[in-house]
């Protein structure tokens, strides 16, 4: 079991964003979390990656407790993440965006004297190729079109060579073709690198096409969990989320 979330509760003042959420993700699995807006998906991600501390409960990665650890420590352990709103380094070039992450992963960030452009060239270009941005290496990150920024986002996340990759709504705002190609790319990369994937999604076609395990969140609680068919057949889920007769 790569990731284990045990009875995580997160309250903000009087508002309970997550209540007793538990889920597990096996190594190599592609797991998905679905739920209406406000169900707590991003909050859950923030708890897993250390951006928020849970009020109760714990998170274990590789059987090691990571609750309460700093985000950068969790990242160094092998958890990668892409964010819902594109979260890149806007005024750095595409190349620099990824290189910074690579250098951090190579533990070279404290190097004060070697010119950075002599380092990590091959790895950075390999990553850019993999996400399809090699020909835009010198473009300024912030000027890229939305879809390309999402690809860059993915590239940055992959640079840390994570074992577990959390993707927060990777196809948000995309047209059907873009969605299909993004999902294909993600699936391919995950298989090539043996990544475990945990992502949140709204697009049901996407979810049911590649997810091996689905968790349904509703108002901060786990409504259902299991293989796609199980979830699809679950009456509660159908009522609350998918609509009758889905």
């Amino acid at each position: 079991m790569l990731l284990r979330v045990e009875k995580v509760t997160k309250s903000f003042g009087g508002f309970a964003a997550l209540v007793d959420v538990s889920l597990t993700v096996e190594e190599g699995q592609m797991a998905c979390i679905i739920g209406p807006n406000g169900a707590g998906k991003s909050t859950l991600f923030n708890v897993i990656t250390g951006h928020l501390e849970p009020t109760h409960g714990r998170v274990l990665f590789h059987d090691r407790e990571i609750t309460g650890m700093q985000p950068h420590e969790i990242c160094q352990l092998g958890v990668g993440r892409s964010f819902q709103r594109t979260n890149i380094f806007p005024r750095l070039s595409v190349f620099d965006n990824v290189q910074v992450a690579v250098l951090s992963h190579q533990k070279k960030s404290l190097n004060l004297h070697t010119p950075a452009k002599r380092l990590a060239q091959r790895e950075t270009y390999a990553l850019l190729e993999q996400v399809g941005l090699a020909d835009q290496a010198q473009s300024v990150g912030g000027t890229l079109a939305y879809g390309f920024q999402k690809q860059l986002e993915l590239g940055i996340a992959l640079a840390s060579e994570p074992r577990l990759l959390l993707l927060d709504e990777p196809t948000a705002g995309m047209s059907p073709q873009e969605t299909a190609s993004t999902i294909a790319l993600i699936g391919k990369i995950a298989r090539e690198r043996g990544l475990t994937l945990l992502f949140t999604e709204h697009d049901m076609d996407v979810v049911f096409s590649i997810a091996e395990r689905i968790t349904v969140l509703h108002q901060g609680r786990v409504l259902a969990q299991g293989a796609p068919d199980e979830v699809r057949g679950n009456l509660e889920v159908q009522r609350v989320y998918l609509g009758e007769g889905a």
Partner: protein
Amino acid sequence: MPTSSAAPSVPGRARTDGPDKAVWAFVAALVVFFWVPEVVLTMGWPEFWIIFFTEAFIWSLFAVAFNLLMGYTGLISFGQAAYLGIGGYTTGLLLKKITDFPFALGFIAAPLVGALAAAVIGYFCIRLSHIYFAMLTLAFSQIVYFTAFKWYDFTGGDNGLIGVPVPDWVQDPSFTNYYRFVLVVCVLGVFILWRIVNSPFGKTLTAIRENPERAGFVGINVKRYELYAFMIAGGFSGLAGALITLHERSVYPDLAFWTRSTQVLLMSILGGVYTFSGPIVGAFLLLFMDADITQNYPGIWQLFLGAVLVLILFGLPGGIMGFIQSRDVASADDSATRMRKTMAEFRRKFWYFFVAMLVFSGFFLTLKSPATWVTTLLFTLGQALIGGLLFPWMLRQLSTLAEGWRLVFLLFPIAPLAVHILLRTPLSGLMIVLLWAVCIHAQLWRPDVRAAFRGRHSAHLQPLL
């Protein structure tokens, strides 16, 4: 543009000429500036110029150290002068209070103590952000100032620590030897900072500046790196403080006063915070203008400085050296919209600088010869009239994206420049025309703008303009 230089066109082949080229630039600077005193003395120019350059070098070092925090890490410190004071007092106290204290040790102690102080102060400041960070750095620097001011027995209070013993060669009558010492130290210091800025550490700092949250989630302990940057800046600022102390052979509390911090801030903004050489250019320019204006028009230096600051913030936020895109333009608009926004921005800034130039030149001419203020007024109005009629037409032509008009605008600044040189507007007044020219070039020399004008995209841009 941020400091990344061109990457190889073929993946996998690294270019190694970058930093080596820069080394030559530093060596060249060292060699060229080495002979300045000789030139000054032979030509019979006032010795003042040797002192001017000495101070310019020291401020350049201080400004580049400051900009490591501001431009590269995104931390705007309002109290960097604290380390000037700490460094200066370290050297001053060691050399004066302890008899026969070795000079080299007294000198080296300054950056070390500066870095140490920065570690302590930074530890607290780093926890805060933005305004609160700025306020806390200000508070600490005032604490340093008042400690030096009030601790009469130890620091001499506001009488200062005078008569710091320095080796003979620092005191040589024509200031030449000290000039050279400062030159070497500063070139070396700036070179080290250059290496730092281009290293993985430097890149990490820019990532922190751009998006600290994301930087955290590529494995970077943001607070730790910010502290390191703070310490490096503090160390080099301490070094600058020691140089000032040796130069004046005395230390006063006002070395740490907050207005010195704002001075280095202004230098960086003037030159451009997003480039490495910006603060150096800003330092030289600011000191030059200070000397020029204070000599010819005492009493309006702050007015001029404030006006230039406002001008830069509105018209040239990247500073003189920084041809950066504003955050608005660095958005994900398509190229047509971006070009339209760029042109609109250009038009706005063009008028802005035109008006500024009229105001400044009118102001300076009136100051120079108050008696003829009527002529000056008429002249200014005349310029306004001509500009008001001519420029809208020219700008409309520019909007057609014809390459010819781009060149016209690029060459345009020669006209006002010539006019003002003929009129003998003081050099600081010409600054505005210089800024105007820089602004025009900053907007029209960018690759995407050039491409648009050379017709590659203009076909589909036309209907939108």
